């Protein structure tokens, strides 16, 4: 007989009095979704800091984070497709959007954002596409032919390389980067609104949610770009050392550029980190002070059930420790890397504590639900909504980047 699957029953453990239909319906993939969209938004904002606000020291980072932002885009869709009970109907959000729902905004905001990112990339790489089309002319081989045709299509027929045309490209990039910032803000602000507007959920309901989400999204985006860039730079350094020896000038150059960039970018990271934690503290203090009907059960969840997850892992390891690490003078690569990993972990825990934490207590306010993340899947559902499903989502942008980077090289650095 076909197994009857009650969505949520498998990984929900009920304690106390919980309404019969209550299960943890929004599980790991709903934690992943705001996390991935946050990375998208953050990566884009980082890129825009260079293009719009002329932060020249971020030039190398800007190109990289823009391309990485593109790789993160389709991945932002993945958690939703894995979560939906009817994934093939997902397109309905674009067909009949019910705009009173925050999720309906997804269709518009996401498409707008995708268009902006892709357009900006086009303007940044147009000259490269034209140059490549010309360079590959006359070169034989299937791969070269394929590449040439692809680049040709990507030029969209705009072959002008005059100074005027290139200036127009730069102006367009600036414009798109500027528009993109509020749109990236929207993309993540609305994700915060999805939760913040649910009056039925005592933990989620707060006007601060959209702002908290935006701040921590930017934090995670900057941290991810810094970390990925750092890893790639370390790899290049390693190759240079293997080829030319440790003391070689090229290795020193790499090291210098890298540290410089890390120190400067980390200042932006710290600013947003402070903003994020301030808002979260404000939310917590207000709830405790006003002590509404839900306060008793929320206090149980936050200070007993989820104490370690919230105060030790998220605030402690994810906020305070990296804050200190980045502020201690004489920043090293190793310390930066540790701080960045902790920041990314902290933002992930924030998403977890909001999504899962909001379902840790029953609507009855006298019951609790424990979430047992499925580790080893035994059917499609426990794969999609389990650890492996989450890891699939995490791995995909890197896999995509490996491929996309061949088309849109983004890892050059300027020779001083």
């Amino acid at each position: 007989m076909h197994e009857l699957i009650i969505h949520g029953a498998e990984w929900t453990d009920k304690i106390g009095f919980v309404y019969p239909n209550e299960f943890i319906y929004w599980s790991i993939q709903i934690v992943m979704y705001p996390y991935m969209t946050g990375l998208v938004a953050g990566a884009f904002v980082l890129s825009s800091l260079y293009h719009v606000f002329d932060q020249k020291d971020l030039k190398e980072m800007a190109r990289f984070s823009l391309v990485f932002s593109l790789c993160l885009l389709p991945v932002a869709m993945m958690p939703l497709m894995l979560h939906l009970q009817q994934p093939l109907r997902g397109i309905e959000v674009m067909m009949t959007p019910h705009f009173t729902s925050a999720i309906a905004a997804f269709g518009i905001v996401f498409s707008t954002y995708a268009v902006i990112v892709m357009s900006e990339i086009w303007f940044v790489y147009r000259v490269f596409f034209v140059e490549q089309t010309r360079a590959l002319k006359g070169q034989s081989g299937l791969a070269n032919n394929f590449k040439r045709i692809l680049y040709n299509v990507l030029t969209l027929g705009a072959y002008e390389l005059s100074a005027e045309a290139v200036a127009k490209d730069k102006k367009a990039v600036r414009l798109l980067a500027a528009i993109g910032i509020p749109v990236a803000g929207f993309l993540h602000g609305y994700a915060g609104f999805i939760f913040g507007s649910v009056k039925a959920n005592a933990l989620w309901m707060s006007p601060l949610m959209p702002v908290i989400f935006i701040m921590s999204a930017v934090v995670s985006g900057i941290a991810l770009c810094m970390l990925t860039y750092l890893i790639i730079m370390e790899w290049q350094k390693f190759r240079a050392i293997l080829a030319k020896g440790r003391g070689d000038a090229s290795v020193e150059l790499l090291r210098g550029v890298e540290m410089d960039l890390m120190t400067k970018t980390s200042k932006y990271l710290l600013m947003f980190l402070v903003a994020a934690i301030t808002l979260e503290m404000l939310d917590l203090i207000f709830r405790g002070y006003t002590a509404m009907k839900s306060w008793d059960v929320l206090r149980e969840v936050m200070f007993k059930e989820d104490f370690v997850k919230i105060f030790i892992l998220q605030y402690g390891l994810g906020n305070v420790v990296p804050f200190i690490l980045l502020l201690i003078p004489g920043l090293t690569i190793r310390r930066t890397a540790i701080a960045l990993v902790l920041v990314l972990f902290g933002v992930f825990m924030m998403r977890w504590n909001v999504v899962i934490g909001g379902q840790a207590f029953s609507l009855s306010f006298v019951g609790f639900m424990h979430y047992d993340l499925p580790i080893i899947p035994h059917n499609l559902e426990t794969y999609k909504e389990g650890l492996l499903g989450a890891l699939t989502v995490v791995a995909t942008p890197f896999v995509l980047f490996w491929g996309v980077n061949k088309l849109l090289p983004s890892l050059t650095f300027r020779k001083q």
Partner: protein
Amino acid sequence: MDCSRRTLLKSACAATAVATLPVSAFRLFSPAECRAETGKPGTRWIFLVDTEKCVGCGLCVKACKLENEVPYDAPVTRTWVERYVITSDGKSHIDSPLGGRDGFTSPKIDGEEINPKNITKAFFVPKLCNQCDNPPCVQVCPVGATYQTSDGVVLVDRKWCIGCGYCIMACPYGVRFFHPVYKVAEKCTFCYHRISKGEKTACVQACPFEARRIGNLRDPEDPVTKIVMTQRVGVLKDEYGTKPQVFYLGLDRSVR
């Protein structure tokens, strides 16, 4: 590059405005914007629960599951009955085994024996979808798969629901769930297929003690309407502004 920043901002605003154009396209091309009256004209369905009459037999839950094809053994149900036992120490003992599907056949609550001498009051509370006047579940549906009919019943379009679960999260009463077979959102429909034909809902018909009744708020002669208008009735969680249309006689402050 002196006035470039101003031009940049100007163009940015204009471009953002242009980017919102696709939104209006949806309205231009939207099919049939007919303000059709769905459901029985001159009707607003309401429900009355008498917690003093309910004995916790659970025959309503059984009838609902069988009438509405909700898998009998699944731990989800369109309606359920909760048991409240308040003891002299002020504690509330609450349970709802399988939603009350098999009734309450043991005095133990969650395996705990309660001394009958300590019970100060005890009662049963049937619950179902409140068919709210301002349903938050309808407001949050991203695709228009759930809606309110003109006679006040909130329904789910099984062919259109994408199964995101937002409506389930938005309901303060916990009446929604995912149907295990159809894999879409599911909830009590006031047996819309029955009341539209002049029949009673399965649970109202099944109840031997008249603890459940359905009526029409727009009909002043309706016996249920008369009770709601003249007697002291309560509703669940009124602080959320949902305007629920299931009214309770004998609603105690300990009811969750």
